[in-house]
């Protein structure tokens, strides 16, 4: 029990440190929301008429539909940022200092993930506010908003774990940055931006198996329709799946790193 309390304190301290670092370098934090915001704006501005396409779900507007896509994109970028921050820490030597201190190793990974979770809550808040400001509404009401937060935070932590796993293997910030095109591919091969039944082949098939589709649809459903058991379970389930798989890989990568050293 005593051990656990100590670990919790360490995780909290490391998370606070990560958050402070992020807030003190807003130039790294800002792109996480600016790029998806711009993309959201141009998608809505250019494709607003697509809601009239046959097979498109009933929505108040294309903005309501796109909100979850922008949020998913932002959370993915947050995962890349977590990876870059970890890689910079490794390059700068701070990581070694942490490893050399008498704290449980897992807290190094968990601390940063906690910070990513808090950042994810901020991202959800930002996009919901942007949505409200430009006339979108959450059909699911307060429970719907809570569902968006739940899935957003869990998915954000999962993407952060992916970023960390890559950073722990790659070790250099520039190679973590190099995965950016891959992020685009994964994002486009999902139903984040458009209904799955309207995607072209073969992307529609890929999207069916892409957990990102379920994360995005899980957050979209309470916005455009209402809280439903299926989308909630699918959304939370796929987000948790990402957390567990990526988290395990990150912890294994950490162990691998320590063995090399």
């Amino acid at each position, binding site marked *: 029990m005593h051990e656990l309390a100590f670990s919790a304190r360490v995780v909290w301290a490391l998370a606070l440190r990560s958050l402070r670092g992020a807030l003190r370098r807003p*130039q790294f934090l800002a792109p996480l929301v600016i*790029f998806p915001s*711009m993309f959201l704006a141009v998608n809505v501005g*250019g494709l607003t*008429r*697509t809601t009239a396409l046959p097979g498109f779900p009933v929505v108040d507007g294309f903005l309501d539909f796109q909100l979850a896509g922008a949020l998913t994109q932002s959370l993915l970028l947050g995962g890349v940022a977590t990876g870059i921050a970890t890689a910079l820490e490794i390059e700068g030597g701070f990581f070694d200092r942490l490893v050399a201190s008498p704290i449980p190793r897992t807290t190094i990974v968990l601390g940063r993930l906690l910070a990513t979770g808090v950042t994810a809550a901020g991202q959800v808040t930002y996009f919901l506010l942007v949505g409200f400001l430009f006339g979108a509404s959450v059909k699911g009401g307060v429970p719907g908003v809570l569902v968006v937060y739940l899935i957003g935070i869990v998915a954000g932590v999962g993407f952060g774990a992916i970023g960390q796993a890559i950073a722990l293997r790659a070790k250099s910030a520039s190679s973590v940055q*190099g995965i950016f095109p891959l992020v685009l591919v994964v994002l486009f*091969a999902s139903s984040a*931006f*458009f209904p799955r039944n309207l995607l072209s082949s073969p992307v529609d098939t890929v999207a069916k198996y892409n957990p990102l589709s379920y994360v995005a649809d899980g957050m979209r459903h309470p916005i455009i329709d209402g809280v439903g058991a299926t989308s909630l379970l699918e959304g939370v389930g796929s987000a948790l799946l990402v957390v567990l798989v990526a988290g395990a890989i990150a912890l294994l990568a950490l162990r691998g790193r320590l063995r090399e050293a």
Partner: protein
Amino acid sequence: MRASLIVIRALVRRALNEILRVPGAAIPGVLAPTIFMLGLSSVFGEASSLPGFTADDFRTFVVPVGLLQGAGFTGAATGVNLARDIEQGWFDRLLLCPAPRTTLLTGVVASAALRALLPATFLLIVAFSLGVHVPTFVGLLIAAALVMGLACAMACFSVTIALRFRTQQAAPLMQIASFIGVLFTTSYAPKPLLTDWLRTVSDINPVTHVLEGVRQGFVGGVAWEHTWPAFLSIALMVLVLGALAARGLRRYGV
């Protein structure tokens, strides 16, 4: 004049050298526009069935967007590289050489024009192999010239930013500018289909003319009425942004 050309050539060669020696760093920049083009067309492809859409195929419609995006990002990368050179002190060395300032600027910007052909070529190869309609030679030539022109204009802009902030941390500023410049146009749909605000923005945005100039080779056909506004817009952008960059260079170290 001849001496200036030699200096410009040397600077361009150094910039191209970088691509060959660290191909890994250049790959994301080369791939991204193609991925973007493929992604957009797979996701939003159905949009071309909307009434009022000018192209039968959404992919053909967004190939020009990808081409200009490659140019925009190359321009931004030029600024990021300059910021890195400033951070590492290499830029001081350039400033110490007795070549005129405009020559140095031309060298930096000209390299962006050449580098921009790389993502464009890659994108066209992928697009054509997927069955996108191949434009006429004149259409391709116009597209290439406009891509190089936009890379120059965006390079001038990001060089100005780099000279002002002198750190690579200003990179998102350069990238966002090129992102907005290229996408806040008729990138996704013909003007009548855009929302009111985006239609207004695309009316003002000179890149819209450039995009239509590139697009005419792919959708419709080459016509003088789409060609001259494109080149006039590019000329004005290079002139204005180039003047800003030259001013930034003059003020550097003051």
